[in-house]
């Protein structure tokens, strides 16, 4: 019962590339915008979900997609767990893989 009065954690953590570093994602913000705010050089181009440059693979955890990723990602990519970071809010802590052009690790 007391759980009703406990403030739910609205911020989640994205653990990137096997715990190389973490991104704190606050409620209402996307994975990409959070990463960029924290100075991480996450690959991106349009930031509106149309180019696919920010795609990443969810290893564990849940995200909340803001759009239908099927316009940009192939079915194989969707099946493999790829999402667009610029259009993904988090519903839990996640583990994610992303390929950086310049090695971020």
């Amino acid at each position, binding site marked *: 019962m007391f759980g009703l009065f406990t403030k739910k954690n609205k911020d989640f953590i994205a653990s990137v590339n096997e715990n190389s570093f973490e991104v704190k994602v606050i409620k209402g913000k*996307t994975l990409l*915008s959070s990463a960029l705010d924290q100075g991480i050089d996450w690959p991106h*181009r*349009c*930031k*509106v*979900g*149309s*180019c696919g440059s920010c795609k990443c693979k969810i290893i564990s955890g849940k995200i909340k997609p*803001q*759009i*239908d990723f*099927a*316009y*940009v990602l*192939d*079915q194989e990519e969707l099946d493999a767990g790829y999402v667009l970071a*610029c*259009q993904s809010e988090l519903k839990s802590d996640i583990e994610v893989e992303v390929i950086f052009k310049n090695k971020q690790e």
Partner: protein
Amino acid sequence: MKLYVNLRYLIVPISSLITLFGIFLGGIYAWIGVILFGIYTIIDTVTKDIHLRAETDDDGNSFGIKQFQYLVMYFMLPVFITLQLALAWRIFQYVDSSIIESAYFAGFAYESGINTTNLIGASLSAALWAGLGIIYGHELSHNKKEGFLVSRLIMALSGASHFTYAHVYNHHLDLGHQDDPATAPRGRNVYWHTWLSHIGQSKFSFDMEKKKLGKQNKSFLSFDNRWILGYVYSLPSIILFVWAGGLIGLLALAAVWVIANFLLEALNFMGHYGLIREEGKPVEHRHSWDNDSVFTSWFFIEIGRQCDHHVRGETYFWELDDVGGPNYGIGYFSLFVLTLVPPLFRSYVKKHLDNWDQNYATDAEKVIAKQFENKNLIAQVAS
């Protein structure tokens, strides 16, 4: 400050309601939407030299209240629907040859019945203000939640529901390149651009749905086809106007759609005319024209801050700012009048394009600009 920042964007909602009220009142008041458009053109021209920056508090946070601004944008959907209902009612009276006489509704006097002149005024008023729905359709197209559907429905009232997808997936990605139908190359006029851009964006949306459904092994004729669905959203308008006035109703709706889409494409035209981006290179501030004189900014809910918007597409309109990009130096109303006379527009824009070529373009973009210049010269000689 917070109140001022949020209330200043209410010019279009209030003006739309006045226009709606004018159509309900009838008589000469049916023209009020057209008259307002004229008055605002004068205000925009007179205040062209006033430019403001985005206001923030000491911590850099915007004064914009998201919940309030979204409430206003969502509220505009029923306003635009009611505008069409009001026009349809007037068309019904016209076709029905209703007697023109004073009447009362809930204590308010209005003119029942309408003559041809005032029906034209009502149609133009409705068309101009329905066309301005683009500013909300555009802003909400960047909201991927329920706002996206509201955007689709607002645009569907002008038969342009495909815009919501094409704007995000085509225009924002291919801006300044020939793959973007909404970017007008040098030498094109606004009338030709309206048709090319409209058809090009619809075709893009068609192809995108075809590709997506193909990947999902679904038929093109599917409820998941959002290109088809967009036109289905426009069906109630068609049915309403045909029911209200048959052929005359259909002609009135066609006029509303043509004018509304002309305004939409004129905004695209003014936002990117003649600017060039090398394929594959990132979109930068220099790939858009800013129109951020004070009245344009408030009236068009900062849609004129294209330079910032195209680099930070996820940013709410009240947070957009002057980023030192190319700027026409005048507002949208003033520039719109110039675009209506293509030789005048080309003459006005030449110095701005020359400035862009010299001070903003990369070497590769200059080469492409030169190719356009040569192509236009050849076309002029040939004609």
